[in-house]
């Protein structure tokens, strides 16, 4: 488990170093995600990589530890959300307007995204079918 957690942190660290070093406009953890994905894909090609956290699915493996982290993803947002206590004056002044803006924007975004996905997916399927 510790080795798996170490590998996750290592990917994030390398991501963070590369992003800062090259001044890339993307977040370090996202590059860390790409790195871990590449490692997992390489493991299937190169047998020597399949050791320790990458040995395969199990409770202490990278798969097991990632599942635990992602199963509790909601919890990780609580501290940032509690930050609302610092913004009570703003909530009093503009709270309703901000809430309305966020709700409307989320509804529109959800509908546009799901529609774009479904429509494109049907177009692709139609093209693949022999006519």
């Amino acid at each position, binding site marked *: 488990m510790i080795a798996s957690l170490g590998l996750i942190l290592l990917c994030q660290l390398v991501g963070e170093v590369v992003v800062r070093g090259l001044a890339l406009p993307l977040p370090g953890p*996202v590059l860390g995600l790409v790195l871990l994905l590449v490692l997992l894909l390489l493991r299937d090609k190169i047998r020597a990589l399949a050791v320790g956290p990458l040995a395969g699915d199990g409770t202490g493996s*990278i798969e097991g530890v990632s599942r635990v982290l992602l199963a509790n993803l*909601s919890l990780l*947002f609580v501290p940032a959300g*509690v930050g609302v206590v610092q913004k009570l004056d703003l909530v009093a002044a503009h709270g309703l307007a901000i809430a309305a803006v966020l709700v409307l924007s*989320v509804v529109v975004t959800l509908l546009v995204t799901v529609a*774009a996905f479904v429509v494109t997916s049907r177009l692709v399927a139609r093209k693949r079918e022999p006519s």
Partner: protein
Amino acid sequence: MSASPFSLWVYLAQSPLLWLTVTLVVYAVTDALSLRTRRHPLANPVLHAMWIVAAFLLLTGTPYTTYFAGAQFVHFLLGPATVALAVPLYQNRWTVLQAIVPMLAALVLGSITAIVSVVMLAEAFGLPRDVVLSLAPKSVTAGVAMGISESLHADPSLTAVAVVLTGIIGAVIVTPLMNRTGITDFRARGFAAGLAAHGIGTARAFQVDPLAGTFSGIAMSLNALVTSFLVPLAVTLLIR
């Protein structure tokens, strides 16, 4: 020789132990209640944990910085959790590759919609300039959004709150909204949840369907990339 209750409180209120414990215990309770209601959208564990902890801080007069000294250990895990999204992505790589074209179309249109809609609505509602700027990156995960907000000289702490609220709103409305549209493609539903409501939407999607959760995670990480480029552009074009 026992310390008075007051001096014990003064000691505990300053220690990370108390606030880390409060965060975990309150969340454990709200999550158990959410499970008890069979994951009803309105029983969202983040929503209820957030206001209960916030009320506790206000009642005890504890400053947020003191609270955060303890809660930062939880907050820190947002980064590793983003890296961990590589695992479901790897496990579902064939399903994902098959849907690459619809995903890219939904990513571009959805990301633009998320930013443009919030900026235009906020301007229409007459919100002050710095609030509009702070709301612009609201659909991406907290760490990334705060970085964008900083580069715009907006208010990163307001952005963090807007991000969490957006996530909660998305997690609460996604299931009823999607059921009403009659769309049963869980790849599409999950992708929309992750794009509009980042990690909280992804947590919700994993509760509904594992495939939806995977697509939600992908949408969340891709949107973090795209939004970093789009927000500065949208802000120069839309705000005068």
